[in-house]
């Protein structure tokens, strides 16, 4: 189970890095989404993976039964999903605004903050 998930995480990371290296912001965004999911799966794999015993403490028990799934990574992932989703929503809006305002989604052409022919400071006066 861990091996399959590890391979899946690797594939996700590869796809994410490939997409993030693109010049186009939309592709970069897709890469970031995949990266976020890869990390979530990674945290999931870092916990204890079982299919049989849910992490529930019954009425007569004081601790988790042995071999139960690990609830902590799931709590971590829940937090990470919320965060990465809200960031994705923000970035999506920002990219759309950038496309509207700057007329391009190619990061090589976005040179407003750092103009290409920025003047050098004066050498003397």
């Amino acid at each position, binding site marked *: 189970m861990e091996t399959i998930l590890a391979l899946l995480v690797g594939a996700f990371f590869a796809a994410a890095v490939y997409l993030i290296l693109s010049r186009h912001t939309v592709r970069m965004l897709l890469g970031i989404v995949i990266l976020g999911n890869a990390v979530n799966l990674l*945290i999931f794999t870092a916990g204890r993976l079982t299919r049989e015993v849910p992490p529930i403490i019954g009425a007569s028990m*004081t*601790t988790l039964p042995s071999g139960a799934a690990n609830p902590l990574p799931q709590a971590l992932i829940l937090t990470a999903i919320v*965060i990465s989703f809200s960031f994705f929503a923000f970035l999506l809006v920002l990219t759309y605004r950038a496309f509207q305002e700057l007329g391009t989604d190619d990061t090589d052409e976005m040179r407003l*903050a750092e103009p290409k022919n920025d003047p050098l400071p004066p050498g003397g006066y």
Partner: protein
Amino acid sequence: MAAPSSIPVDLSAAFVMAPSTLGDWLVILPPALMICAGAVLMTVRHRIHLHGWIAIPALVLLLLVDFALLVKVVAGGPVTMTMGRWLPPFGIAFTVDLFGALMCFAAGLVALAAGIGALKDINASGRRYGFFPFLMLLMAGVSGAFLTGDIFNLYVWFEVLLISSFGLLVLGSEREQIDGALKYAILNLIGTTLFLIAVGYLYGVFGTLNMADIALRAREIEGAPLMTLSALFVLAFAMKAASFPVNFWLPASYHTPRITVSALFGGLLTKVGIYALMRVMVMLFPLQREELSLLIGVLAALTLIIAALGMLAQDDIRRVAGYAVIVGIGNMLAGIAVGTVAGLTGALLYALHSILAMTALYLVFGRAAAISGSVSLTKGGGIYRLAPGFAFASLALFLAVSGLPPFSGLWPKIMLVKASLDIGAWWLAAAILLSGFLTTIALARVFLFAYWRPAQALPLAQPGAMTQPGAMTQPAAMTQPEAVAQPEARAQVRSQLGGDAAAAPAAALRSTPAETWPLFALIAIITVFGLFPELPLSLSQSAAEGLVNPAAYIQSVFPQGPAP
């Protein structure tokens, strides 16, 4: 994989119902206070005249709480508060040691300064889009990051400050800002995602996320991929701190928003990265830091030199300030690379100096651009004549940033150079000195062109406009024929820089207390810090000792001895 816990747990400890003492609440109060203030400000989002009345007292309160926390930590050592009685290592614990308390206090100081400056600098539209709520939430994130004792919680606070910084960065929606924000947002998001990857692996290796618990176990564990982990942490935090070669988002974005926002970012955000790097690499993984020290040292040297050269190559003074932030990061990294108590003291002292000095530098440059009429070195000039007092204060700040006596930049730099010579890293000491030299040249050139040189003729020059009384606060300037400024051009620049666009040209040069007080107060603090460095020095030294030997920190989290 995390081992199943077959050890019997003593549950009685978790059911202690004794109320926390009032002093313990100080640990959680700074972020809680800021979140509440942010929430209140959100509810009155459209009544912008109320914002200042709520935000400034909240920031004053934050500073007081930070100060009380600092006093408590100095007097009694690290303080821990556990949330909801989920005892460590399971629950989220807020643990503050001297290091965190010092950083928190410095952050509170610049937040108050920036908040007061914003009363004038942020116009109605900036407020309506929520400058003050974002400022509160940013401070919640920053204080939370400095105070938390749980590494996943650190990630969450990173995200809190990151999303508020996005909000602040796009405030106003200029085209330039959107360009800068896009690069800032994507690269910083990748940086925090790298951090999250490292946290995931950390949990896989240790099965715990509590920093004190990890600090205990990392010294014992053998054969775990801890080098990979620490390398990931170094990459992630170096990216947050804008160290070379992952620094390029900073000069691309920090000069685009309103100058108060730049000042906040320059003072706070990169230092949170340095804080996290020191916390993780020095306290949690000391052995791995030793292995990586050459790498961190080379990064530090390259950051120092390349950022200083970057300062020399800029015409826009706000971008000069951006590279000055990165030079400071190089100095702090050098201290981490050295890793001795002396080196870490230097790094920490430099971080405190840098939080104050970088905020002040951006505020000074914003004011300078408003007075001289341009952010460009080629076009600006004449500040010395128009505002001699301000020019004098700026010079003091420039000396502090360059690390020249008698101001605050000197002492950490001496410590860093001496610490690197002590371990035989002469090249690191040389890089620190060389970059200090280049910084001095760059800032001296700013002073030469923007301050000393007579005002340049701008196409909008209207000499007659200056005869109105009250056009300037400095009466001396009225009698100088060369000082005849270009009020309209200045008003234009001012509105770009964040002044009120509707302001009359004559009002462009009038400085209000909201603009000048925080700036002069910060410079005064820097000067006092430089003249009497004993107190910050001794505090930083005990903080650095606490990082190298976290016994007191661990003791504070596990009063009954380490968890099984």
